[in-house]
């Protein structure tokens, strides 16, 4: 699933490890989500959205709209 995680992280000058610490997940997890290799669970997606003060749909592109 496409997302804006890398862009939002870069805006704040955070490394993947920094973001991982804030989300309480590993750097590998952040990398996997950023590159679209892993779709986070709903609780983790909410956690990410809340960290950036955004709605989930502003952060992740719905697969049905990603054509």
């Amino acid at each position, binding site marked *: 699933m496409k997302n804006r995680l890398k862009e939002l992280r870069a805006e704040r000058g955070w490394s993947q490890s920094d973001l991982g610490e804030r989300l*309480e*997940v*590993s750097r*590998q*997890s952040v990398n*996997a*989500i950023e*590159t*679209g*290799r*892993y779709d*986070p*669970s709903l609780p*983790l997606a909410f956690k990410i959205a809340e960290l950036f003060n955004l709605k989930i749909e502003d952060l992740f592109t719905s697969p049905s709209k990603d054509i």
Partner: protein
Amino acid sequence: MTKRSPIQRYNGRVVILSLAYVALLFAAQIAIDRYDVSGPPAYVIAILPALAIIGIFAAIASYLVEETDEYLRLLTVRQTLVASGFALSIATAWGFLESFDLVGHFDAYWVAVIWFAGLGLGSCVNKFLCTNGQ
């Protein structure tokens, strides 16, 4: 002192259980061969090394319960599924070959050894899928 991560706790348990396995295997070998233990005590002694291996399976289960990072949990689940499929496939194929007298007998505990080798294969599968965007 910082709290140890789930993977550190898992590694610690595996090291302790591996040492216990070696010690119990030697002890069982000596007890049964040198002291000629037989009957019900021999069954108890013979099963002791297996308990350490079963402990390693339990350590993997504990890791999956304790790991809060869902992506790392997914990787471990996939790794163990590959290992299980690998070990069961070889055991099943060998069983049929053996029943038709095409190959010799091998002791059932080798299935655990093949399963641990399958964990290595599972790790390769994870790496392959990660580098190929899955």
